[in-house]
């Protein structure tokens, strides 16, 4: 019953107008949700934002111990400091965003109908810097990740709400979806190979996380990085791991992928920044 209400709210928040007869984002989401409720019948879909920790008890116990001293705390305080420090011209990030940039991450990525492209939160941060005469920050890690970690922390509990406003946006969504399901690299694997078909199974020493709820906890502190990093940093890493040449961070391919990947989790709550291996 609770899940039904959840689904209805999620669907209601992303009504789209489309002329195509199939491949409709709303029904994509329904399909993905039924797929994962069948795969993990004992786990509530909204708990999938905890990924592997919702699936495996031993991993969860270790994670809860680690959360006593959350490794991302430093990133949040660095991010808050960076976010609240004014630019040389006296203005600040708050001036570029709705609600002063607080509690807005759940709306990203969004489709900019004027520029006709997907805009991610990291891009929006750099656009703000450029508009105010500052140098853009390198993507993926460091200052950009600290800032968006802070912004994510202010959105905790808010439900992801990515919208598809027009046909161009739908085309971007479709490109992202294509990318997600396309095999690539020497290992000839798609995102879906691990995170749809084999979610919950082991890949060497790791358990594969389900695609649904994956974006919610990014930027993430990964022990492998010994620091926080953005979702696109992980896309590049994943592509490298299957021996495909990674795309540039914030390339059209990765932005469209992030758009599709986040839309998939509409209705689930932001819980970033999170801790992962």
């Amino acid at each position, binding site marked *: 019953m609770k899940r039904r209400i959840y689904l209805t709210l999620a669907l209601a928040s992303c009504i789209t107008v489309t002329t195509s007869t199939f491949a409709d984002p709303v029904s994509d989401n329904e399909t993905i949700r039924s797929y994962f409720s069948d795969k993990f019948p004992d786990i509530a879909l909204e708990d999938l934002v905890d990924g592997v920790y919702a699936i495996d008890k031993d991993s969860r116990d270790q994670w809860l*111990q680690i959360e006593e001293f959350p490794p991302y705390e430093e990133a949040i305080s660095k991010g808050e400091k960076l976010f609240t420090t004014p630019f040389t011209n006296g203005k600040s990030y708050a001036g570029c965003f709705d609600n002063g940039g607080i509690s807005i991450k759940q709306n990203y990525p969004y489709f900019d109908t004027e520029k006709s492209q997907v805009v991610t939160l990291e891009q929006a941060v750099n656009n703000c810097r450029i508009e105010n005469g500052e140098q853009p920050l390198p993507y993926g890690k460091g200052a950009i990740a600290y800032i968006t970690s802070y912004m994510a922390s202010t959105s905790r509990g808010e439900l992801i709400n990515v919208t598809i406003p027009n046909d161009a946006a739908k085309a971007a969504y479709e490109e992202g979806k294509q990318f997600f399901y396309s095999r690539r690299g020497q290992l000839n694997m798609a995102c879906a190979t691990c995170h749809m078909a084999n979610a919950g199974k082991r890949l060497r020493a790791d358990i594969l996380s389900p695609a649904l709820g994956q974006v919610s906890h990014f930027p993430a502190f990964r022990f492998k990085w010994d620091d926080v990093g953005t979702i696109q940093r992980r896309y590049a890493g994943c592509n490298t791991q299957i021996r495909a040449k990674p795309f540039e961070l914030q390339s059209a391919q990765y932005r469209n992928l992030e758009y599709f990947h986040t839309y998939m989790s509409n209705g689930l709550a932001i819980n970033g920044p999170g801790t992962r291996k």
Partner: protein
Amino acid sequence: MKVKAKFENNKVEVKLLVKHPMDTGLQKDKKNGDLIPAKYIQELSCMHGDKLVFLANFGRAVSKDPYLAFSFSGGKAGDTLILKWFDNLGDNEETKVVIK
């Protein structure tokens, strides 16, 4: 050091996270190829009043930012614990925590 100490089930549970590079002395600096000198905690102790309730002797195999958890009996909420570590270069850090 970040420390949490809680009294429950007739024991005091202590959890701590130490910020320390724990360099083994065997790794090389990527930029110039020089060995990064060894800097690692050798001893970590916990005092409850004048009683030593925990002592750990580490070697270079312990990883960066060690996390420890231990428990002891005989303490109660409101007591103070003193945790201290020493490393091979003589650096040290002391933290006091009140049991909750």
